[in-house]
């Protein structure tokens, strides 16, 4: 059977979820996403510039029939704002899946966990498929899972920092107790970071800056696709245990005397 990412009744071949921010233009966004193989893409909800005569829209480049559009609540600092943003996003008609992020501080962009829990409760009750961005805290992950979130998305490191997984031990504990998919969200810098997350057994990786701000975003999109695939396969294959001393790969019998 094919190895798929399953949640909330949907199946995805790709375990890479990508953002659409920070690209040079919509064409580059489209090209990078195509190469990344991602099937789920995040978007933000913002006011339309009513005086701008250029009415090109992101969705003109990302066909919602081809991609699962995952609206985020980036920029929301309260549970109310996040819920309001999700309701607006749902009205756009791209489904009921939302990436919930309630920011607690603009320097670290770390989530406000009490507000995230509060918003998640309301959104789940309203029938949203909630994917919350959280710190790498196993207790928070457990609480959100219990509320009914479809996945939990602990950060690897601060958004856009490219530091990679700063606390693999916490991610391991989250993985051990999770009954919903665990998607590492934010902080990935390069393909090996994505591979490490997948090797650990994470169900997916969500990233934006690492691709969009790379010198060559299209090439990095490919690298990330391969990194996620390699990491996933390595996880499924089961790595060898780490040992301090050598074990010979060639037979010890028949060595020339």
């Amino acid at each position, binding site marked *: 059977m094919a190895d798929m990412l399953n949640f909330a009744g949907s199946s995805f071949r790709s375990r890479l979820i990508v953002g*659409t921010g920070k690209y040079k233009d919509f064409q580059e*966004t489209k090209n990078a996403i195509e190469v990344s193989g991602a099937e789920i893409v995040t*978007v933000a909800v*913002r006011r339309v510039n*009513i005086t701008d005569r250029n009415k090109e829209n992101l969705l003109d480049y990302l066909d919602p029939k081809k991609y699962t559009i995952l609206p985020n609540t980036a920029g929301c600092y309260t549970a109310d704002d996040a819920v309001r943003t999700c309701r607006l996003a749902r009205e756009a008609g791209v489904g009921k899946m939302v990436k919930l992020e309630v920011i607690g501080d603009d320097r670290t962009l770390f989530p406000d966990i009490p507000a995230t829990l509060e918003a998640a409760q309301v959104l789940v009750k309203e029938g949203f498929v909630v994917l919350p961005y959280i710190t790498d805290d196993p207790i928070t992950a457990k609480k959100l899972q219990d509320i009914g979130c479809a996945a939990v998305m602990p950060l690897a490191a601060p958004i856009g920092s490219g530091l990679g997984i700063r606390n693999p031990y916490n991610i391991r504990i989250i993985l051990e107790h999770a009954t919903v998919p665990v998607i590492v969200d934010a902080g990935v810098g390069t393909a090996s970071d994505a591979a490490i997350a997948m090797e650990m057994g994470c169900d997916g990786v969500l990233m934006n800056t690492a691709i969009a701000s790379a010198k060559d975003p299209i090439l990095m999109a490919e690298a990330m696709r391969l990194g996620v695939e390699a990491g996933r396969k390595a996880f499924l294959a089961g790595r060898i245990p780490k040992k301090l001393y050598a074990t010979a790969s060639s037979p010890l019998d028949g060595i020339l005397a």
Partner: protein
Amino acid sequence: MVVENAVFLIWVKIRINGEEREIAGGLTIAGLLEELKIRPGRVVVELNRNIVARETHGSMLLNDGDVLEIVHFVGGG
């Protein structure tokens, strides 16, 4: 005295995305979007904090003092 079938052009002040605007009275949300050259299929409209379903854009009249938010999807992570 009741004046029937008379046309009064009244201007009403509304707020669109935080910006004050004067529009002709009797304009619907659909009419406003058309005036602003915004494709209704790509946006969501909130009127005085209530989301307006797309199907009702054509019947929802704008009144003086209304606060309108018109949002869409942009690139984000």
